[in-house]
């Protein structure tokens, strides 16, 4: 934790566009976003969007970096990052299964899909498996109500899903990963 703070401070003291001591290129790309947003503290959410796009998730190192760059207190950056569902402070799994819990999907049985997946994987909504294989999550509404219930597997929307469909998909991922 303290190292994170120190690295970020050092970066800042040498100017915003310098390289991050970790040598991670992505910080340079984050600098580009920061510059585009003119280091405005108001743009915190936009910056976090870019950071998550680059790093996949927001770890403390990144959050400190953002706080220093925008001259914001770290606690405020953390507070904002944890307020919004879209931001994640943990790395995501190799595969993702997002079950739509919009009303249209729920009345057509998406709740049962979630229960089946939770029982099978032992994961809860929003949790990533310890081995990093899968992130199970729910969405408030994908707007795909016409094909309810909808499930997003690795970014692909599938309609008219049943618990069996979801479990089958899970098996196919396990088989895939087993081969690798």
């Amino acid at each position, binding site marked *: 934790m303290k190292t994170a703070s120190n690295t970020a401070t050092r970066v800042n003291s040498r100017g915003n566009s310098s390289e991050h001591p970790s040598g991670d290129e992505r910080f340079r790309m984050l600098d580009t976003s920061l510059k585009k947003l003119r280091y*405005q*503290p*108001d*743009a*915190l*959410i*936009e910056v*976090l*969007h870019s950071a998550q796009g680059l790093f996949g998730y927001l770890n403390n190192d990144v959050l400190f970096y953002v706080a220093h760059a925008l001259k914001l207190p770290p606690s*405020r950056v953390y*507070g*904002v990052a944890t*307020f*919004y*569902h*879209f*931001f994640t402070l943990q790395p995501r799994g190799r595969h993702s299964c997002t079950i739509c*819990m*919009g*009303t*249209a*999907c*729920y*009345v*057509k049985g998406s*709740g049962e899909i979630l229960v089946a997946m939770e029982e099978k994987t032992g994961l809860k909504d929003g949790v990533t498996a310890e081995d990093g294989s899968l992130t199970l999550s729910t*969405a*408030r*509404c*994908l*707007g*795909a*109500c*016409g*094909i*309810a219930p*909808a499930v997003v597997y690795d970014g692909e*929307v599938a*309609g008219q899903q049943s618990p069996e469909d979801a479990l089958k998909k899970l098996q196919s991922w396990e088989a895939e990963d087993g081969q690798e």
Partner: protein
Amino acid sequence: MDKSELQAIAGKERGARKPVCVSCCTAAGCLSAGGGDVMDSLREELSASGASQKVEVRAVGCMKLCSRGPLVRVEDTSDGRPVADGARLYEKIKPSQAPVLIRAAGEGEAAELPMVDLSHPFFTRQRPIVLENCGVVEPERIESYIEADGYLALHKVLRDMTPEEVVKTITQSGLRGRGGAGFPTGIKWSLVAKAISEKKYIVCNADEGDPGAFMDRSVLESDPHRVLEGMAIAAYAVGASEGYIYIRGEYPLAINRLQTAIRTARRLGLLGSRIFEAPFDFNVDLRIGAGAFVCGEETALMASIEGRRGNPSPRPPYPAEHGLWGHSTLINNVETFANIAPILRRGAEWFASVGTEKSKGTKVFALAGKIANTGLIEVPMGITLREIVEEIGGGDPDGQVKAVQTGGPSGGCIPARHLDTPVDYESLAELGSIMGSGGMIVMDDSNNMVDVARFFMQFCMDESCGKCLPCRAGTVQMHGLLEKIRDRRATADDLALLEELCDVVKYTSLCGLGQTAPNPVLSTLRFFRHEYEELLQKEVTLA
């Protein structure tokens, strides 16, 4: 940019049209059913077939009957035929069917593919104003919007009207906010117009958060310029020069299309400085939400635009006095802004002639749930729920319609026996529901109302920001009691406690989320109390 240039763009666009137009829906509903591949195949097939002199393929927005997507419409206007005569709507199209479609289109024949009956009430009972361009114009091409009279209203306003006249027109039209509460739009505008503020802002609330609602998304994906034009007119009317569209991060396609729309409008001088050579500047920026339902509440939304946690603040002060960064701010939702250009183009009287005494115009609904025709509909205010559910929606294919839910987690369940209620703000409120932003979910016998109430309560509990105690802790307790009732562990005392909590949370919460969170419970208790009572136990059962 002046009017002649605008007309020149429209003329050029019209001149380039081909006699036969194949339109493929590229809104999210059809894309998630494979519409993107259909679009690509149609384009490839067209260039391979050599029919491009006669046939064109257009990537349009939502064609409304989402449950039958991907949808492709073919309109044949060769030999001067009116569009309506030669229109065919094909459903559930696969990429492999592109050759058949293109060949048939070229030969002016119907393809032997499943077709939707365009004379079905689903289409004929609709009254498109907001959705007039939806499924018609190409959302990624500003020229297509201009061809459909786009930006004419903005021109008229800037050249021929004073800001006061614009506000007056909107007031006279009787338009009320389409975000849910139905506050008169003209009054809201006049408050901001009158406010003394160094700077003013226009905010478009596109944080469509109700689960089961996709009206705003469809409008933004299908006709984004309409919203920009409405915002620009509003900016002129109230004296603002900057605007923000706060849009859900879950809508990447709508974000993308808005970005394109802003870029192209700026390039043509329809946004920026001295628009239409008038002393009027207006710029729009996007702010991407990050997944918080409460940000639909206007004070929370502003906090989020300012880069803070989306916590609501007590009102007053209202945004009209003390909005973004302390400046006077006008906030309307997508559908409200989408109504502005047609009102100014066609007049307040024309708009006021549609709808009822107190609810003018139309309302867009996302019709979903246990119903045959799922999709996007726009209907005149005053239409009955029965007409929507049974005629437009085609009823419940599997069971008996039991209730219609409107207003999402802030709304209520209206039982089947009240289906003859007209759809207007007051009538829905009398039944303990609200118009809401436009989600309409049909439920049947297989849906237990206690569980429906629990579902919405879970939503409110997950989305509570945590700032005020009654909402933060009250939703948790109400959810627990609903679970207890559903699981047959509750007694009559628990039900009484639930009702007391509903009262407390409704009247003591800080913002609309908490104040309306008990609504799904109260409305199901009002109409389906027996479903609760059937589950109650005489003795205390420990978990």
